[in-house]
């Protein structure tokens, strides 16, 4: 599925003294089967932008297109099944007595038969390495376990585009790596993933393209190498290391992922 945002503007509290223009004309395409990272400082409009992707927020002006069709003409329930949105701190929306029931809530609304619902719940929990939590109360879980339960609830809808807003905030380092692997696995299975993150090191590992937001506008978009070498002051640690070496050792190239960077640095040292 191709998701297109055209010249989106969004004004919060319009016509009041507290008016804030969060988006000032953003155009962006989410291509099929890609991991698109959206980065930018706090308050740059990242979360506002992604909440337009399933029309949870309606733009003040501009358009959202799903495979070329105006998203406002689709049924909202259909749109929200196809574009799954995982909020920041999604665990605050957990409510059911068990994790299993919580994850089953959304797919059950689709009118699937019970066996299909159970199967989807099992698969989603397994994909997140959370199968063992199925019978537990979501309120007795740790922060990272709750996060996985909440994401499983959205995965169980089998979205074509999965939008995740700061999914790794508060996760331990290994859980963070597991979640990034899950994102790559989803892309392999044909799902597009929009990853909102302020952690450029994790963006470097998984993104096919990067979009940088600044004060409600797109200030750069392209491959990770294009974007990060274009402004090495706003780049992951790998690029900050190599860009300091490129002046005297241009043969180092433009690696971004940590394995590529390690290979390039080893070649440089002749080890």
């Amino acid at each position, binding site marked *: 599925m191709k998701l297109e945002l055209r010249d989106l503007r969004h004004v*919060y*509290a319009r016509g009041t003294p*507290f008016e*804030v223009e969060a988006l000032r004309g953003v155009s962006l395409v989410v291509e099929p089967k890609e991991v698109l990272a959206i980065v*930018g*400082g*706090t*308050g*740059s409009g*990242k*979360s506002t932008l992604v909440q337009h992707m399933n029309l949870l927020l309606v733009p003040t002006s501009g358009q959202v297109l799903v495979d070329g069709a105006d998203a406002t003409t689709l049924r909202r329930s259909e749109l929200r099944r196809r574009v799954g949105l995982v909020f*920041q*701190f999604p665990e*605050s929306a957990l409510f059911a007595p068990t994790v299993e029931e919580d994850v089953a809530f959304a797919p059950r609304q689709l009118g699937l038969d019970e066996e299909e619902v159970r199967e989807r719940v099992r698969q989603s929990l397994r994909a997140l390495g959370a199968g063992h939590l199925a019978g537990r*109360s979501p309120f*007795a*879980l*740790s*922060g*990272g*376990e709750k996060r996985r339960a909440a994401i499983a609830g959205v995965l169980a809808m089998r979205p074509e585009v999965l939008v995740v807003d*700061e999914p790794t*905030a*508060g*996760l*331990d*380092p*290994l*859980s*963070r*790596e597991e979640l990034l692997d899950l994102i790559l696995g989803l892309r392999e299975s044909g799902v597009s993933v929009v990853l909102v993150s*302020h952690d*450029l*090191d994790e963006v470097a590992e998984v993104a096919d393209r990067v979009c940088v937001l600044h004060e409600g506008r797109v200030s750069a978009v392209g491959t990770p190498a294009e974007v990060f070498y274009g402004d090495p002051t*706003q780049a*992951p*640690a*790998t690029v*900050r*290391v*190599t860009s*300091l*070496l490129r002046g*005297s*050792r241009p043969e180092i190239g433009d690696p971004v992922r*940590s394995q590529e*960077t*390690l290979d390039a*640095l*080893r070649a*440089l*040292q*002749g*080890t």
Partner: protein
Amino acid sequence: MQNPGEWTRPGGSFAVSCERVSYSYPGSGRPALSEVSLDLRQGEYVGVVGPNGGGKSTLVRLLNGLLRPESGRVLVTGRDPATEPFEVRKHLGVLFQNPENGLVAPFVEDDVAFGLENLGVPREEMLGRVARAVRAVGLEGYERREPHTLSGGEKQRVALAGLLAVEPEILVLDEPTSMLDTAGRREVLEYLQDLHSEKTVLHVTHHLEELTGADRILVLNGGELVADETPERFFSNADLLRENRLVLPVVPRLALKLGFPPAKLSTPEELAEAILARTQSGTRSR
């Protein structure tokens, strides 16, 4: 309250002292903390790391009296938070994980002032303290914004300002930078480093690079305190890291794989410099 005997109380010479503290959540089969003993000296900056579910947040809640230990004892400046929670909270302030849950007031400045109002601080002094705290976290110009219109990172700074305004001598920070961008994180960390000598800080984080300047790093896993190390020894102990679901940050990891000591090289600049020095001198010793 008069406390003439404060310094003769057990644990009184420590800012925080936990003695064989255990806690289990209702309905959970295994203890969230079991027999944890630790002491924080005044002015110490101590990091706490470990996997999700390891007991970090439980420890935080026991320190300010939100939870009572099942067995063992917690003392904060010689007081027991389970029996004197309000007194303890004047001395020990907590910044909780999710900033969303802590914001209560209609405007940012009211939110920052909330804790002071509860303590009955006079208005004149309150205005000064709020302004200083707002400046410290880089939120000037946000005073009349409504918290719900702020981004996650901005909310986190509002919550931090509210904590700083109360001026507790012990700060407990549960992932204070989890929602901040790189620049915001650097600012907050620099501010925390400045506090280093005057405050006692317990800093819970998953971002190990934030703790290179700490005095000690504690590792909690499965409810047990499994290590208490200096940053240098901690970063060099690959087994300890792996056993506790910890992963070295990018720069120390690259440094280690290239044959440099990981704890000495925590910034990209330091690593780049070390590589240049090695390639220029032509020595390829590993």
